[in-house]
């Protein structure tokens, strides 16, 4: 018992060090977004030049807009497919379709991005060029489809975790009162699922915004996404504009995250959210 305070204090110091480690590069990017010099890494002076440069740079704005539109599309697809699938898996876990889908979704989660990227590029080319489905020559469609796969898996497991924590008596009561199936889903099931659906939508959106490797493969010229643009800038030379745009996006993401966290906290599901997110159930 005597060793307790020392070990506890060491653990506390370790915890703070890890948090500091996690925040170091973010703080650096935010600080350097106020660099008035021409190169990101060499500090010249404090100024807002980078922000005005970023917000008037057409390449940057178009890359961010491509990313945001792709993320919105991927989030919509992932929420629709994932909510239905997660609900089905929770209410009917033993079925053959259920087992097959669960296996496939788990495989999607553990496939390295590079493999998904090299698999989707030839597939889109053969669909779009050989089969003449011109839909798949659109950069937006390609990004949306490619980003929706991982996100669907995340939403499915979130919704399933939420649904499993809830018994079906409310739905059964509604059924016993002769509520038609669609109405039952809308006015009983969906409100119960809302926190996990929201969390899933936000995750799908941010995962898509973050995606570099798959996007680099499937994009077509003219639809360069923001991370791919940044990655090409790493080779060409980094300017403070990138940091400024990143700081703006960080602020927006944090606002969205805080809103969802508030909803989740009110619904009391933070633990299961983290659990489902991290694959532990």
């Amino acid at each position: 018992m005597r060793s307790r305070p020392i070990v506890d204090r060491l653990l506390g110091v370790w915890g703070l060090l890890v948090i500091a480690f996690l925040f170091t590069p973010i703080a650096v990017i935010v600080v350097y977004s106020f660099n008035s010099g021409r190169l990101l890494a060499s500090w010249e002076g404090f100024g807002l030049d980078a922000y005005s440069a970023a917000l008037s740079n057409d390449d940057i704005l178009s890359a961010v807009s491509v990313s945001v539109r792709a993320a919105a599309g991927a989030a919509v697809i992932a929420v629709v497919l994932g909510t239905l699938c997660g609900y089905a898996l929770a209410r009917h876990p033993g079925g053959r379709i259920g087992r097959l889908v669960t296996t496939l979704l788990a495989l999607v989660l553990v496939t390295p991005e590079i493999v998904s990227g090299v698999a989707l590029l030839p597939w889109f080319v053969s669909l779009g060029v050989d089969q003449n489905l011109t839909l798949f020559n659109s950069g937006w469609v390609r990004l949306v489809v490619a980003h929706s796969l991982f996100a669907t898996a995340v939403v499915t497991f979130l919704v399933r975790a939420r649904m499993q924590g809830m018994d079906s008596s409310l739905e059964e009561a509604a059924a016993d009162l002769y509520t038609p199936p669609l109405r039952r889903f809308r006015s009983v099931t969906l409100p119960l699922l809302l926190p996990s659906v929201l969390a899933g939508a936000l995750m799908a959106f941010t995962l898509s915004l973050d995606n570099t490797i798959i996007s680099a493969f499937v994009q077509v010229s003219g639809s360069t996404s923001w991370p791919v643009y940044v990655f090409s800038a790493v080779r060409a030379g980094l300017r403070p504009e990138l940091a400024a745009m990143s700081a703006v996006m960080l602020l927006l993401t944090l606002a969205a995250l805080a809103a969802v966290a508030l909803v989740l906290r009110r619904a009391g599901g933070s633990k299961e959210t983290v659990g489902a997110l991290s694959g532990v159930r």
Partner: protein
Amino acid sequence: MTSDRRVPRAARRAVPPGLLATPALAWLALFFVAPVGLVFWYSLGRKPGLYQTHANDVLTLDRYREALGDTFLTSFSGTLRIGVTGTALCLAIGLPFAYWLAVKVRPHRRFVVLALVLVPFWTNFLIRTIGWQVVLSPEGFASRAMQSLGLIDAPFSMLFTRGAVLLGVVYNYLPMMILPLYVALDRIDGSLREASNDLGANRWRTALQVTLPLARPGIAAGLLLVFIPLMGDYVTAAVLGGARGNMVGQLVASQFQQAQNWALGSAMAVVLIVVIALTILATAAAGAVCTWLLTHRRRRELAGIAEGSAA
């Protein structure tokens, strides 16, 4: 009465629940199973000419022979080394942190700390990696500050080395390790630790023989979530490792993007999947052996105690 209840039950089954999973199944079949299957198929083909990417008129394993050449193997062993070291470091850093978060931090503060771990997770990882490039750069503020304080004599020389790549991957994948570890540790009933304490085990023994075995699912999930994406990642290495950061993912990518040799690139991708699967299997086997040794030894001890008290 029974017929009364049968009607709503029938209505309840209006949409069979299994059917609701079929849209996702169809989507995955079309955009996951088919394309990945195509990669396996391409890997058995060849690149017929300068302007064609692939052909499967003759099925051959030659691409695998080609893929396992010297360049690939050198890069592959480097990637595997970074993958294994990086994953191990993430576990070493993340385990005490997750334990602190799940056990020591007061419950009402836990949500805040958890949010702090999540914030970097949801910031663009490429941007964060660039942040490290700024920190490590020889003319950067950290290098200058440490020189003026007399802590180092020369500017930083860490950027574009394997050490920088390792720092970058540990940084980028650490939250993926912390989250499942936290969830697993948080689920362990605190009274089990108290019981172990009451029965005379000291803190280390409780940690090693009670807490750690119970946290096993979280450890396994964390190892998977870090190791798999890390093995395919070449972006972190390109930003922090420069020419030295040649990961195997870069080789695969260049076969598709520059060399336009889909057959060879596919074979490399398949080799990558197989090696990742083998590494996971080997780790799982090692984990099972460790668990067996631990429980086996403890059983013998218990038997000894029983004999001792009987005597």
